[in-house]
């Protein structure tokens, strides 16, 4: 496996505002309407057509874009982009510097043609902001080829037949694309690399707070052409996807050895709808009653290669059918089955397969069957010739599926609606000053600055709570207390009350308490009132309940308890806590108690 090459493209969404308009990156999730669109094929920079674009055009789909509350004319492709989001740019540059990348002198936005509908404009705006960096890993350096700051695409909601529904909520979100060189040694190393990079950005607090904020694409080759695996949803799945892809390519290589590299356009569909008038297959009868037709073809020499151990050519053909909106195919290695049995003798009479031949059945509208036939023949020829280069996508369970041909190099041209953006010294200095730190540096910084234990600092850093910590310290001026509130008091109260903890809300509430009264006892009492009893923060702040007892009040309270005869030196403090709801200083209480009892003695 020495010829295996693995590279990663890690995509991180930055939170805040979108890249080319002032819409927030977050939405309420509601939609106010939808926009119907089609995309047309356009020739690329050199007058050629991009293969991925030609392929998509052949599918002739239409798109409905759901209008989210965080979208505007820019996302609808009804207005040119506004100026570049400088905050996102500076953060992208800062991350670049942390990964030892060199920044470009001039940022030049490009239009990358994407006609699968995921961009209303039909292109994605993208620019290289830095290059030539490296990441140290336990197994050596992994070079960072380039970092791009681009617009995220629209989120796909559903697809039915030739119509795809997208939401505009994600479109235009700043997306940092960090691409490594193919220096990654194996699937385990890929996971480590992705984790290191992801960790740094999560710790910066700049990514969107959403599970989908980080996605990774994996570039892979083992000598049969480059495969780009899009959208691996979880870190651990990187390993699964790579293992799946390695075994898929090994199986294809074996098939090609056995069958030879030639494919003689052997798929030729005939209409066999008549045979299926009374079929027991529900999939087929449903499709036929909606006007589709049943087609069948022999698959010369493919018997036993369609679904047999590691041989899965059936799935490769099903991938083509699926992309044309057909509910997959049925092939000879899995028939009889799926309610198709009684039809088989007549079908074989028509197809007359030889002993080595397989066959397949597909349900499809008549209008596109020749196109599917052509695409299937093309795909078989490509697979047998072991040109396995293509764009694939990752499934939830760690497999990969065909998505489209690899896009060509001519898929980009300059985005002239966005002026060239020279990076001046000031921007770079600002980026340098906010450079994200490693986990270890963050922990020792935090523990040193706020004088908290290393253990507390580590917990705060790992929880992504550094910013929150800073906010707490700013209003209560005490690092230890802040750490205690964040790590103990608030989580405990949240657990007891069953309410979500919202640090912003809590900090706002503490801010209402007069500055000289923000001691531990008062704050903890305030939080208890707020979270357990649902008291309004303003009422809490002006309530006596959070005011510590003065020495006089303390003396009076203790005297009355002594008079009751209900307290002694051992139970004084718990008893007081039970009976007096206001905070007090226990050591002072003990002192006063002894004072009183000593005098009486």
């Amino acid at each position, binding site marked *: 496996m020495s010829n295996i090459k693995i590279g990663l493209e890690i995509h991180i969404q930055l939170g805040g505002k979108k890249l080319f308009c002032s819409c927030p990156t977050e939405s309420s999730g509601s939609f106010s309407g939808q926009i119907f669109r*089609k*995309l047309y094929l356009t020739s690329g920079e050199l007058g050629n057509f991009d293969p991925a674009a030609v392929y998509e055009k052949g599918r002739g789909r239409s798109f409905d874009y759901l209008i989210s509350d965080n979208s505007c004319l820019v996302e609808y492709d009804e207005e040119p982009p506004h100026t570049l989001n400088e905050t996102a740019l500076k953060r992208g540059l800062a991350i670049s510097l942390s990964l030892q990348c060199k920044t470009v002198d001039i940022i030049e936005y490009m239009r990358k043609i994407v006609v699968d509908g995921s961009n209303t404009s039909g292109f994605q705006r993208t620019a290289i902001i830095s290059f030539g960096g490296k990441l140290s890993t336990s197994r050596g350096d992994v070079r960072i080829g380039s970092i791009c700051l681009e617009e995220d695409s629209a989120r796909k909601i559903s697809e039915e037949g030739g119509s795809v529904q997208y939401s505009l909520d994600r479109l235009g979100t700043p997306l940092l694309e960090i691409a490594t060189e193919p220096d990654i040694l194996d699937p385990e190393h890929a996971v480590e690399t992705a984790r290191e990079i992801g960790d740094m950005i999560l710790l910066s607090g700049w990514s969107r707070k959403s599970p989908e904020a980080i996605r990774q694409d994996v570039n892979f080759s083992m000598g049969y052409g480059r495969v780009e695996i899009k959208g691996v949803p979880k870190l651990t799945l990187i390993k699964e996807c790579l293992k799946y892809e390695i075994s898929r390519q090994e199986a294809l290589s074996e098939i090609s050895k056995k069958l030879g590299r030639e494919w003689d356009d052997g798929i030729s569909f005939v209409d066999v709808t008549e045979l299926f008038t009374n079929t027991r297959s529900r999939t087929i009868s449903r499709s036929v009653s909606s006007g589709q037709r049943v087609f069948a073809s022999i698959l010369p020499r493919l018997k036993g290669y369609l679904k047999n151990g590691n041989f899965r050519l059936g799935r490769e053909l099903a991938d083509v059918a699926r992309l044309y909106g057909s509910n997959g195919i049925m092939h000879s290695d899995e028939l009889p089955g799926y309610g198709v049995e009684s039809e088989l003798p007549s079908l074989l009479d028509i197809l007359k397969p030889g002993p080595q031949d397989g066959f397949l059945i597909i349900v499809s509208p008549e209008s596109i069957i020749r196109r599917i036939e052509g695409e299937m023949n093309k795909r078989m020829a490509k697979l047998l010739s072991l040109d396995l280069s293509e764009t694939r996508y990752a499934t939830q369970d760690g497999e990969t599926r065909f998505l489209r041909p690899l896009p060509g190099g*001519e898929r980009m041209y300059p985005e002239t609606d966005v002026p060239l953006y020279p990076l001046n010294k000031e921007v770079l200095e600002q980026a340098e000053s906010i450079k994200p730190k490693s986990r270890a540096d963050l922990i020792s910084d935090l523990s040193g600055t706020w004088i908290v234990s290393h253990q507390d600092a580590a917990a705060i850093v790992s929880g992504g709570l550094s910013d929150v910590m800073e906010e707490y310290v700013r209003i209560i001026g005490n690092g230890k207390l802040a750490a205690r509130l964040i790590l103990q008091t608030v989580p405990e109260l949240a657990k007891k009350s069953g309410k979500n903890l919202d640090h912003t809300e809590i900090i706002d509430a503490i801010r209402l308490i007069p500055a000289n009264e923000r001691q531990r006892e008062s704050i903890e009492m305030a939080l208890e009132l707020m979270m357990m009893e649902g008291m309004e923060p303003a009422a809490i702040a002006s309530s006596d309940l959070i005011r510590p007892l003065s020495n006089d009040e303390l003396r009076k309270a203790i005297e009355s308890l002594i008079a009751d005869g209900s307290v002694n030196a051992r139970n004084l403090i718990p008893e007081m806590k039970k009976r007096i709801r206001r905070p007090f200083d226990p050591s002072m209480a003990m002192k006063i108690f002894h004072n009183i009892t000593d005098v009486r003695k």
Partner: protein
Amino acid sequence: MAEYLPGEIALTDISAGNVIRFNYKGTTFTGTVISVMNGAVNLKLSNGYNLSVPPDSMADIEILGETHSVPEEQIREASKGPVNVGILATGGTIASRVDYVTGAVKPVLNPAFLEDSVPNISEFTLDLDLMEPVLSENLQPDDWIAIARRAKRMLDKNGRCIILHGTDTMSYTASALSFMFSELAGPVVMVGSQRSSDRPSSDAFLNLEAALEFCREEIGEVGVAMHGTIQENEVALHRGVRVRKMHTSRRDAFRTIGSSPLATYQGGKVTFSQDPYKPSDKSALIDKLDRNVSLVYFHPALGENDLGLLLENRRAAVIMGTGLGHVASRFYPVLRKSIRDGTRVIMTSQCIGGSVNMNVYSTGRELLSIGVIPAGSMLPEVAMVKSMHILANYDDEHFTEIFMKNLRGEYLQRESMAGVSVP
């Protein structure tokens, strides 16, 4: 084919088209030089990205060879369907392509590229007339006349004519053509686009598809075909003298003011919501225009002298007044003098929607008594173009009478709310 030139390569040795390898901040790049200008070398890298590099940060430059020059787009033979249609390309976004070198959108002479994405184009035989492409903001009244003459030739030959036009001033040209054609034997459909056709999301293709369908109809007037909504499935046909660009960037920027459009095209079908003018036996052109007309926007800070200067020596002036058709009373003397000196002063409203009515307030009545001509529901730009047309082709004494006549549907007969998307 790599040609290695040993020794130091100076910036002056590099020119567009060279494939070069160089070191930039420690990384080796290979790319094709697009331009050497403004203190930066602009390259296209093999991954498709462009990179602009200041020459002093480039090191170890090697010239590896030349890229193939971009082949000239072939002018294909236009389609040959059963219906003849003249296509007059004047320029604008719809007849533009991106310049892939600079990325700027430039007009082109060959609109054949539209054919790939316009499904019904094969049903027509296109008779192409390509004018020197112009962005519509650069058009002047002489250009309107040239367009009208060429459109007439296309009409006489093909019975119908489509004009590809930039959107910025398309409604002015539409209005000018409407008045200049006293008779039309077939439809003149102007069509533009708000997104250039190099973009996959361009509106050009559907607009042209619809324009072709509108052309099949019995129409004897000038219309503008543009997206009716921002959806990619509806195109509206607007009457040339009632249409206005009401948004800077939206696909549905063009609106019929005060009523529904003449017709819409949706799902392959044309539906009329008003009766269009019927075609005449032949087309007739009255193609003189008098440029000596002002269009003045009244505002509270406008000085009496300013207005005086804008009206001086003009044969007519269209004022975009406030509300029902008013200007401040301090302008009465200036207006009185201009009218006495022979300038026709016409009142329209900057509200755009609705009619001027100068009988409601004393200001209006005063202006009428001074001799200001109320333009009713006529759009300000249309009133200007109509004045240019009347002044150049009719006796002076009939000006007001002809101006008040509804020549091409420029006056709304009645205004209701039905089908109106802009008041």
